[in-house]
């Protein structure tokens, strides 16, 4: 085991995979000489050269669109969107092209690419950077959507994503990039898609989250414990494919569920999780499934973002309401 933060885990995984597989090519804005605005690709330009770590023109559509062609040529592109908030300018390529090229070409052109993108808020970026847009991508058939919360999972899920023949949107927790250091297995480490992580066991209510929201849920679980409420915490890890069985079992163990996410409430991926849980675990439920999320408002400017993103205190209030019901 080595202690790493998430940035270090992603960086070393990219390096190891590029060492293993020559067909991998990284492309994005500022990923080369400067090593990425968050330094996630630091040192890779020097190590693998300008032909494999490519500083791109400032154009999200061309970064993803050219990745389609790179994949058709036989390469494994790993494009970076500097912020998922700007992914809208590439969405037509991701949704219309990347995700369905395999289908449209009847299997001839697989898209074995990994689109890396930091997402979510909490680091006081200027406007438009921080939106948690995961739901719109989870709604795209043909695309897998992965959102690790720990450094170990960042390594394991990124390795799996790179080796997966399907296109994967790999969402990196912007707010959690350097928040904590975890033990990361050395050498080969893969985490299969479609398996939730049981972060903490508990008996009264199951908190379900992904990415940075897992930390918020854990914090809320600590606060709840002080009130004598025992919370289980589940990390969804991969939105697509979704571990329906793992979610149902986790909720079944407590009979209550509360979903936490950074995205707005309506149409958020929490709604999908809630619908799945009620269908798969309806007879174990003792109370309605609750959601604590951002509001149905645009992501606000930095000085008030902490009032927008679900806090541990708001989650605690949700836990109290959930426990009080039924």
């Amino acid at each position, binding site marked *: 085991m080595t202690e790493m933060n998430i940035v270090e885990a992603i960086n070393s995984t990219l390096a190891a995979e590029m060492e293993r597989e020559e067909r991998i090519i990284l492309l994005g804005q500022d990923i080369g000489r400067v090593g990425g605005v968050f330094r996630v690709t630091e040192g890779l330009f020097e190590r693998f050269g300008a032909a494999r770590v490519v500083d791109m023109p400032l154009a999200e559509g061309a970064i993803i669109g050219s990745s389609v062609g*790179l994949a058709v040529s036989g390469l494994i592109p790993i494009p970076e969107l500097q912020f998922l908030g700007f992914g809208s300018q590439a969405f037509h390529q991701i949704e219309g092209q990347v995700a369905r090229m395999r289908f449209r070409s009847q299997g001839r052109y697989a898209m074995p690419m990994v689109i890396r993108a930091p997402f979510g808020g909490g680091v006081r970026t200027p406007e438009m950077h921080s939106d948690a847009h995961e739901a719109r991508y989870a709604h795209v058939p043909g695309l897998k959507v992965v959102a690790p919360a720990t450094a170990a999972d960042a390594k394991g899920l990124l390795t799996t994503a790179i080796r997966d023949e399907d296109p994967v949107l790999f969402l990196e927790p912007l707010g959690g990039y350097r928040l904590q250091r975890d033990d990361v297995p050395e050498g080969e480490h893969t985490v299969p898609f479609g398996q939730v992580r049981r972060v903490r066991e508990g008996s009264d209510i199951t908190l379900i989250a992904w990415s940075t929201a897992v930390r918020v849920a854990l914090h809320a679980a600590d606060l709840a414990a002080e009130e004598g409420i025992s919370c289980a915490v589940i990390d969804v890890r991969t939105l697509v494919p979704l571990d329906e069985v793992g979610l149902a079992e986790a909720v079944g163990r407590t009979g209550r569920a509360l979903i936490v996410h950074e995205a707005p409430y309506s149409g958020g991926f929490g709604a999908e999780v809630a619908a799945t849980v009620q269908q798969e675990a309806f007879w174990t439920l003792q109370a309605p499934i609750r959601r604590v999320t951002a509001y149905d408002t645009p992501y606000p400017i930095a000085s008030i973002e902490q009032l927008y993103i679900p806090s541990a205190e708001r989650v605690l209030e949700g836990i109290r309401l959930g426990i009080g019901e039924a």
Partner: protein
Amino acid sequence: MSLVEAGPEQPHTILAPDGTVPTGYESPLDDAALLYAYRLMKLTRVFDTRAFNLQRQGRLGTFSQVTGQEASVVGSALALEPARDWVVPQYRELPAMLHMGYTLTRALLYFRGNPAGNAMPERVNLMPIQISLGTQVPHAVGLAWGLAHQGSDAVVMTYFGDGTSSEGDIHEAMNLAGVRRAPVVFVLQNNGWAISTPVSSQTAASTFASRAAGYGFPGELVDGNDFFAVHEACARAVARAREGAGPTLIESRAYRLGAHNTADDPTRYVDETVEAERWKLDPLLRMQRYMVARGLLDENTEAALDAELTAEMEAAVVEAEAYPPPHVGQIFDHVYASEPPRVARQRRAAEAGAGGGDD
């Protein structure tokens, strides 16, 4: 209503409407290649006519004719070597696709709504037809860049139109191609119309070719009704790309003699007299006159060719109509390499004809 707006820059022309070429002009293509080109142009016209009738009979879905752009598409595509180079098409480039190894049967299947129409056989260097306009152009740039990255000397040719030129993807792709000196040839077929919208509503510039300067590579304006002018410019562009000199933009100024597609009614926006004038510039007629003058074609060989192409088309119609209809499993096939469990469950339910609706 007006003709295609001709700017102060006149397109480069070699083959005049009467089928003559300037004194001393020697075709770079030999007789066999010219016959191949003419055959492909004519086959396209045969397809358009027959497929239009099939569509009206309810035997084919919506499709777009190439009519009026045969010289533009065939002249450009013949600058490529099918075994080595690539075509990234839009949707009005049937003969370029045929040149690369696509078949009439697959084209018919595509327009019949059969998924097999987009299945390119291995070693056919073609991407699927593109419907989301402009998105194919960055694909072409990435493909060209990726092939060069792997040491290939292949060239990628991609097609789009005057309407699509307004899409943001075109700017992003051409800019990237310039930056990366990608071995790509952009063939912008200016056919005068984007459905009902004339070129004057797409751009205030007098040519599209002039855009290339802004991206740091050459642009050429050619007469899209002239097989030789298009071919010469594209062959030069392919040679440049192959030797590592980067991209070229070719504006092939043709004219859409048909409708946008079989659902369109151009009589609502195209002046009849204009249409009649444009037919006098028909690229196929122009090429035919040249072929006759060169001694490669006469009434007998033309009639024999007509019969041959009609038979070829009929054989494709028979084959396409006899093709097994798609089944429900094909809604799921090839979406994922590894199918998520809930999609697998949906597939099982669909294949079993189950109702329900929960998943």
